[in-house]
């Protein structure tokens, strides 16, 4: 983690002056868009692609070296990919990332636990974060995810993963706040916090080219989202965190506040580093700055799987210029957490908050109030779904 933080000034210089050339520290890969959910907020499951093979992914990871600190293996549903374990192992072998984050809809819960166990055992120096999607409680979850019985499978998957005892495994819960659940958010928070996951994160439903949701009304109204997120912030701030969790929760609260500002101001509130510090590789080998824009830099097949040739191409520069000119803005979580890391004022606010809450008197106050709400145990890392 410290190694990644050490590179932050280099990314800032890279974005400002074009030098030094840097590979991204956060990479999301989507080996397949196939998904067995039928979510109201996502149409990716309808896509079919000429997907990269495991061998092609392996060549790609080999070309990246060990710069990427954070990998997200996304989808579609990542566990529908028969090669997911081998993909994680290939990332581990070539890139040695600090974190591999995998979201799941839990529908294939019977195969998920053994696959996660294998990944944790065979990649011991990488922290795995398995984020279980939860968009409602009971039938509400099934309704939003479009599959009857999904909530029961979520519970079974959560129980099964909780039985695993690996020091490099965190089990998180991830909720997409959309216009379909924003009115029932208290119930969702109560349930999710009550499960005491290692982390509980939310993301706002947003239009994305990748998900084929451009032009579809899925984002909740600004007022409703603000109320929902204020409640979440209040709950998080009543918790007592220790060590690194104190830092990650401070980042998370900053993220939620940032989303509110982006919705209100409709601009890049802080500079976006998608295309500099974060990237996404789609199933067919297209390389994107992010999944919201999903505009292709180049395809990996056209450059013999050499990620650097894509990343340092003039096509990539064109996309970066558009992002730098603030021609886009969005609250995408993965990019936003990277952006906050690159933003000195945000780092200062997080630092001062952590320092303030570490004072014995302040910690004591939190301790007393914490009894009033369900507790989240240890929250390791702030990131989320792709």
């Amino acid at each position, binding site marked *: 983690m410290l190694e990644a933080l050490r590179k932050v000034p280099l990314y800032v210089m890279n974005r400002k002056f074009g030098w030094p050339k840097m590979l991204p520290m956060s990479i999301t890969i989507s080996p397949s868009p196939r998904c067995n959910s039928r979510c*109201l907020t996502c149409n990716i499951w309808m896509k079919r692609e000429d997907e990269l093979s495991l061998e092609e992914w392996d060549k790609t990871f080999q070309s990246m070296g060990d710069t990427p600190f954070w990998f997200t293996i996304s989808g579609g549903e990542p566990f529908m990919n028969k090669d997911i374990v081998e993909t994680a192992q290939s990332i581990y072998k070539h890139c040695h990332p600090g974190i591999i984050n995998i979201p799941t809809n839990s529908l294939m819960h019977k195969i998920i636990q053994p696959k996660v166990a294998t990944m944790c055992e065979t990649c011991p120096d990488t922290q795995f974060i398995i984020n279980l999607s939860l968009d409602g409680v009971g039938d509400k979850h099934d*309704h939003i995810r479009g599959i009857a019985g999904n909530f029961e499978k979520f519970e079974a998957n959560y129980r099964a993963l909780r039985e695993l005892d690996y020091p490099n495994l965190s089990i998180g819960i991830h909720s997409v706040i959309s216009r379909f659940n924003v009115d029932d958010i208290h119930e969702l928070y109560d349930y999710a916090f009550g499960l005491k996951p290692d982390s509980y994160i939310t993301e706002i439903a947003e239009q994305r080219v990748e998900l084929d949701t451009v032009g579809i009304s899925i984002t909740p109204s*600004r007022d409703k989202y603000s109320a929902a997120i204020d409640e979440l912030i209040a709950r998080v701030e009543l918790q007592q965190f220790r060590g690194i969790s104190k830092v990650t929760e401070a980042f998370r609260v900053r993220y939620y506040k940032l989303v509110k500002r982006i919705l209100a101001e409709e601009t890049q509130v802080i500079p976006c580093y998608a295309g500099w510090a974060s990237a996404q590789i789609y199933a067919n080998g297209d390389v994107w700055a992010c999944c919201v824009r999903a505009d292709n830099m180049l395809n990996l097949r056209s450059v013999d799987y050499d990620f650097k040739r894509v990343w340092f191409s003039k096509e990539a520069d064109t996309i970066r210029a558009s992002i730098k000119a603030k021609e886009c803005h969005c609250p995408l979580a993965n990019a936003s957490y990277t952006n906050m890391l690159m933003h000195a004022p945000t780092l200062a606010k997080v630092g001062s908050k952590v320092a303030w809450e570490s004072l014995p008197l302040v910690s004591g106050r939190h301790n007393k109030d914490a009894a009033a709400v369900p507790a989240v145990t240890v929250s390791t890392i702030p990131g989320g779904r792709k």
Partner: protein
Amino acid sequence: MKWLWLQDLVRKPKDAQYAKIVLDRYRLGIKAHGEIRGARIIPGSEQCEKAMSVAGKTYLPDDAPLIPIQGCSLPGGCCCSYTPVMKYEPQMGEAAQPEPVHTV
């Protein structure tokens, strides 16, 4: 949030493959009982009369005008795009349809 910048971003010239890829996807979505019920066209430019004449309506994939739109007047090529129409999105004069829950 209006996401107008994103709708502008997708206004790029489309090749001949675009319509087949996207409409095949929507056919699959409807066949598999997804929430999609049709396709709508986001016009590439409000200055293009051809685009404006087909925009705003909901089409079944088999009936949708093909992009690039024939007779498009944009000098760089047709920048229209498809967007899915979901069952929960009421159209003018229509009530929202119920959202079924499917089984795997």
